């Protein structure tokens, strides 16, 4: 039986709540199911003490979760939109990320901040952003961006058990996607990318919702005789450069695709590393696909005009292989 991205996130939370009494959920409306219904029914099943509604106080609830994590809880905090993480940045950047380090290893912050990002039609400039690159700039944070329902399930379970603060970025466009959870599926390792599709002519490095676009693009260029390998990074910190390098040494051509703008983005980081470490392996300039450098607009025509998609990846692959 297939389940949606939302249902498999809920299943992961439900299982971890059952397995470990230290796991607690908190956030705005989470006891009522959350804005997207991810936590629906969990307060009824696990109790209102473990699945708790909070005021609209992102700064305080991020601090609350961090303080509780220092003292033995494993809080899973929901920040409804990544756009609102701006309000929690002091805590995430100055406290959560640095506590283990500043304390000389005496303390840890085993906390997951679940949030969702990306554009999905008309949510406009303050509910559609992809801000992940802000967080990969901060040592001490782990950044996870799952691309499918099954990936979301496994990576969320791993994130809750990890022991370091994790920013877990879901994508609202993936929420209704369905997939069947295979029996006895091993959970993915945090920090290990996956080859979503094998190929030999070009490597498309991507994550989150753009993995789907890259797979579509790979199908299209296959009809034109081009074999694209698609790498789903899964985690943006740490970056699995081993898996990336193995692919690039096979294909010698690289396209990096993400929904975030290119300026200062994850793609810039990967491109710099590849240029530094595998310069001699590259047969073509590295190409980046990303959002146009504008706030996400409201009107669908405008939104489509800035967002990257399958066609952009196809063009980039064709250019890289020209």
């Amino acid at each position, binding site marked *: 039986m297939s389940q949606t991205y939302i249902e498999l996130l809920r299943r992961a939370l439900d299982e971890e709540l059952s397995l470990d009494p230290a796991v607690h959920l908190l956030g705005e409306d989470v006891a009522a199911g959350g804005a997207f219904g991810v936590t629906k029914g969990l307060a009824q099943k696990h109790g209102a003490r473990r699945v708790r509604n909070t005021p609209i106080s992102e700064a305080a609830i991020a601090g609350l979760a961090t303080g*509780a994590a220092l003292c033995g809880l494993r809080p899973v905090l929901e920040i409804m939109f990544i756009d609102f993480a701006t309000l929690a940045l002091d805590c995430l950047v100055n406290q959560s990320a640095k506590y283990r380090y500043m304390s000389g290893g005496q303390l840890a912050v085993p906390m997951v901040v679940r949030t969702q990002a990306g554009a999905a039609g008309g949510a406009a400039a303050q509910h559609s952003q992809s801000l992940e690159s802000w967080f990969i700039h901060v040592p001490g944070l782990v950044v996870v961006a799952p691309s499918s329902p099954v990936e979301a399930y496994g990576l969320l379970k791993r994130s809750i058990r990890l022991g370091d603060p994790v920013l877990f970025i879901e994508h609202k466009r993936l929420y209704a996607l369905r997939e069947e959870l295979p029996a006895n599926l091993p959970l993915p390792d945090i920090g290990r990318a996956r080859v979503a599709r094998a190929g030999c002519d070009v490597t498309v490095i991507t994550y989150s919702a753009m993995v789907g676009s890259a797979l579509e693009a790979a199908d299209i260029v296959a009809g034109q005789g081009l074999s694209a390998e698609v790498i789903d990074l899964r985690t943006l910190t740490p970056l699995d450069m081993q898996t990336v390098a193995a692919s690039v040494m096979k294909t010698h051509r690289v396209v990096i695709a993400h929904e975030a703008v290119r300026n200062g983005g994850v793609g810039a980081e990967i491109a710099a590393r590849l240029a530094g470490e595998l310069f001699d392996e590259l047969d073509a300039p590295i190409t980046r696909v990303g959002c146009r450098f504008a706030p996400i607009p409201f009107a669908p025509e405008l939104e489509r005009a800035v967002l990257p998609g399958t066609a952009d990846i196809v063009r980039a692959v064709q250019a890289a292989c020209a």
Partner: protein
Amino acid sequence: MRAVIDTGDPGLEEWKRLFGQLWRIRAFEGQVQTLAAAGEVPGFAHLSTGQEAVAVGVCAHLGREDALFTSHRGHGHVLAKGSDARAMLAEIIGRSTGLCQGHGGSMHLVDAPNGVLGATGVVGGNLPLAAGAAWAAQARGKAAISVVFFGDGATGAGIFHETVNLSVLWQLPVLFVCENNGYAEFTSREEHSTVGSVRAFADPYGMAAATVDGNDLPAVFEAAREATARVRSGAGPYLLECMTHRMAGHYVGDAQHYRSREELAAVTAKCPIERMKRRLLGLAVAREELDAIGEAAIREMAQAVADARAGAPADPRMALCHVYGAPALQANPGAGE
């Protein structure tokens, strides 16, 4: 103001011990000032000189299992909680023998086994952490409480109000101790807030609160006794506003041009150590005994500096340690660089 002998009076020997604690903080901060002036303290040093009675009066009611969070002006709190002066000084001068192996410094002292869970250099950032520690204690059925020290300047931050609201809503066992020294860094309270007292912020949230003369050790002791007992009883959070004075500047090297000579003289006249000394003299404790207590503290801290200096410098090989805990992340070159 309460007399020394009152309900819950801990007895003369305990008062003398607490008097010694005031002196230990004063002497500790004196050493930090000297070290900073000599260039031995990397970065900034913020002294709590003049505010000792708040630290001592509150921490007298805390056990090791109680969580303490402090601010950039936190040396006194950590010392009063019972942490080792040598390990604190070693941290403040950046030695590998410091509490945090030189990873934290003056503004980020942590001594987890002693319940000192951290100090934050971002004003107000410690408040929700303390509430979180209190939530963990509540959720795990522990008797421990959480205490956070902050200045009146922190009430200018929205996070103060967010945290108070949440703490009352969830009835968290957290004690908010405001050291109202009348200054947000260089800016006086009159210039940074239209609300006269910090205690007043408790009312709309329905939080129990009190204001006390923070330079009067017995008064702080008694107020903190009531506050901690109430928080321990499960009655929810409490705000204790302690009116005090910063005898030193915002940081070592601050010339305090924004304070008049008269103001500084008045602050010196309110010295909590002198006040406690007069109280103890009034209880027929010999002047020589009180002087000896002060001298012992000064000797202890001089020795603590010598011990701290003897520690090995921070080890550059440790610079990439403690960024992550998970083994897979430590090993991944992408995680740390």
